[in-house]
């Protein structure tokens, strides 16, 4: 048992921190206010390999581990929640399933450019009528000769219009399981620009406003047969596996947002004077900060533990990290919401004003309790495991 980071992780932390401070932070406010996708930052992240951190070098990645990836999302989210989720959605939801379930040809064609950051990835599972309940899927894929024909739509898709490669889930038939007829779901790789693949509404969101959240529409969209990802009918497993990993990314985002808010609040309470002394000299402030810091630290332990557990899975696929990921996301997201809310309160009136960042962080934090499985879903995953 050792809680100290080794040299490479310390150096990686320094790198991500420097990058976040210099590149992401100066744009964060504009990204939020103008709902601006930070293309410039994403291009720089691509150049420095941030979009392929846990991918082996043979596939154009950096050959690092999950913890390094988690620290990248964490540090970016400290200054800009939008930048954090762009990396998380790309890496956990698109790169990871192709790396795990892709054929050698699919890896060569899609994983390599994704890992090099030449292409950006997205993931389409959610539909207007299918969120937590994947069986509600309406999007269909029908094999016609050498092509699958997709029809339907996906909503709330992160990196929506900005991505180049999409992992899309669709119903490919019906199966009987224990006497019940269920939808057979499969996963596909779809490229932007495929005829019949268009974009619908852009969502106007409360937080992470620069992340380009779009509706994806498929109308007789024909993709090559070989773009089926994994086996036909294994879509649900692929989706669940992918979301387990994605939750670690979102947990890292939540952790980063909480840390960012805490850092700013510590600095602010030292500077801000009332009744002739810094407000950090008041016991209420001190105790609030103590609670916030303790919870952030606890969240960090859970997030890093989940990262290490997923790392174990990389070498031993029998290992499950599902519960660790759920706990990390559940806790980190709730801590992010609590810490950012308290941060706004400790900033007083200034906390409610745009320039003071904590207001943005509070809005950004909320989504971490919702996407890639709500806090309620995480509780279902955790309780199912402990009650089995």
């Amino acid at each position, binding site marked *: 048992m050792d809680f100290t980071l*080794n040299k*490479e992780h310390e*150096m990686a932390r320094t*790198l991500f921190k420097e990058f976040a401070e210099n590149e992401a932070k100066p744009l964060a406010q504009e990204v939020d206010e103008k709902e601006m996708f930070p293309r410039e930052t994403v291009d720089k992240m691509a150049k*420095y390999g941030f979009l392929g951190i846990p991918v082996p070098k043979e596939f154009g990645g*950096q050959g690092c581990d999950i913890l*390094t990836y988690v620290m990248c999302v964490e540090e970016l989210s400290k200054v800009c929640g939008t930048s954090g989720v762009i990396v998380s959605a790309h890496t956990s939801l698109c790169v990871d399933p192709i790396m795990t379930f892709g054929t050698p040809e699919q890896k060569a064609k899609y994983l390599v450019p994704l890992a090099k950051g030449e292409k950006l990835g997205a993931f389409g599972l959610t539909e207007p009528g299918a969120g937590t309940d994947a069986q509600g899927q309406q999007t269909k894929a029908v094999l016609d000769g050498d092509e699958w024909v997709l029809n339907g739509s996906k909503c709330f898709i992160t990196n929506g219009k900005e991505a180049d490669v999409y992992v899309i889930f669709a119903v490919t038939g019906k199966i009987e399981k224990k006497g019940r007829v269920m939808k057979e779901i499969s996963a596909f790789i779809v490229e932007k620009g495929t005829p019949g693949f268009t974009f619908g509404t852009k969502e106007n969101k409360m937080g992470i406003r620069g992340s380009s959240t779009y509706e994806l529409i498929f109308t007789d969209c024909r993709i090559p047969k070989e773009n089926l990802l994994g086996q036909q009918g294994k879509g649900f497993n692929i989706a669940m596996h992918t979301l387990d990993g994605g939750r670690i990314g979102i947990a890292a985002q939540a952790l980063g947002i909480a840390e960012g808010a805490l850092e700013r609040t510590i600095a602010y309470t030292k500077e801000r004077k009332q009744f002739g002394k810094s407000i950090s000299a008041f016991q209420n402030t001190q105790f609030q900060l103590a609670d916030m810091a303790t919870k952030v630290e606890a969240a960090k332990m859970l997030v890093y533990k989940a990262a290490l557990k997923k790392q174990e899975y990389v070498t031993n696929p029998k290992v499950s990290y599902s519960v660790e990921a759920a706990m990390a996301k559940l806790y980190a997201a709730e801590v992010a919401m609590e810490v950012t809310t308290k941060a706004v309160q400790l900033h007083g009136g200034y906390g409610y004003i745009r320039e003071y960042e904590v207001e943005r962080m509070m809005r950004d934090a909320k989504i971490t309790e919702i996407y890639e499985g709500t806090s309620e879903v995480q509780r279902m995953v955790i309780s199912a495991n402990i009650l089995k």
Partner: protein
Amino acid sequence: MKIIVCIKQVPDTKGGVKFNPDGTLDRAAMLAIMNPDDKAGLEAALRLKDQYGAEVTVLTMGLPKAADALREALAMGADKAVLVTDRVLGGADTWATSTTIAGAIRNLDYDLIITGRQAIDGDTAQVGPQIAEHLQLPVISYAQDLKVEGDKVIVQRQYDDRYHVVEAKMPCLVTALSELNPPRYMTPGGIFDACKAEITTWGRADLKDVEDCNLGLNGSPTKIAKASDKVRKGAGEKIVPDSPSDGVKYIVEKLSEKHVI
């Protein structure tokens, strides 16, 4: 082409300097970073590597923990790293430091040596030109632009109110200004490789053609007579005027009192 870049690990003075209760510098409380001018020099070397496929060796002299700065350089893209560390080399002034580094460089092949113009801790700007002197190389200091053409370097050498375009035949030594070019970041994969990479470590015995009497504290011609936290001029008067006009009146009074107006 073979390039040696000399770098130094320095305390980061950007966020202010921290002192121990006894007034000495609290180095432990300050972040150790690669000296900014050196980093710009390293970037110049890495650009030459990108352009011509040069081999870049980074070299530093310091405590064993200076290896961290070398690893950072490797993670940015340098190929090899040399750490010169030895207790007998401690306390060196610029003469002894340049003697030591020249002694290490004599073991290496090179076409070009790049150092930073100056380090943010000592601010001397002396070690680069002194290394060149020990190695009998042409030196071009204060480089704001650096190009290689064939066996020559072409440098924009900055002066106060002008720059010279200077050409020198390699091997030679160039000292880099931070303005030379903004350094690149490390890459995550570069970091992982750098942590596994072997760093060549040399001590006194590995230095070529140097004499003990020119090394370390004893071999330093300059001696520190006194070092202290800077004593600053005390604060004068400060007023919080009721209105801007009162403030203006106050300044005008003071200016006439001092016969400025």
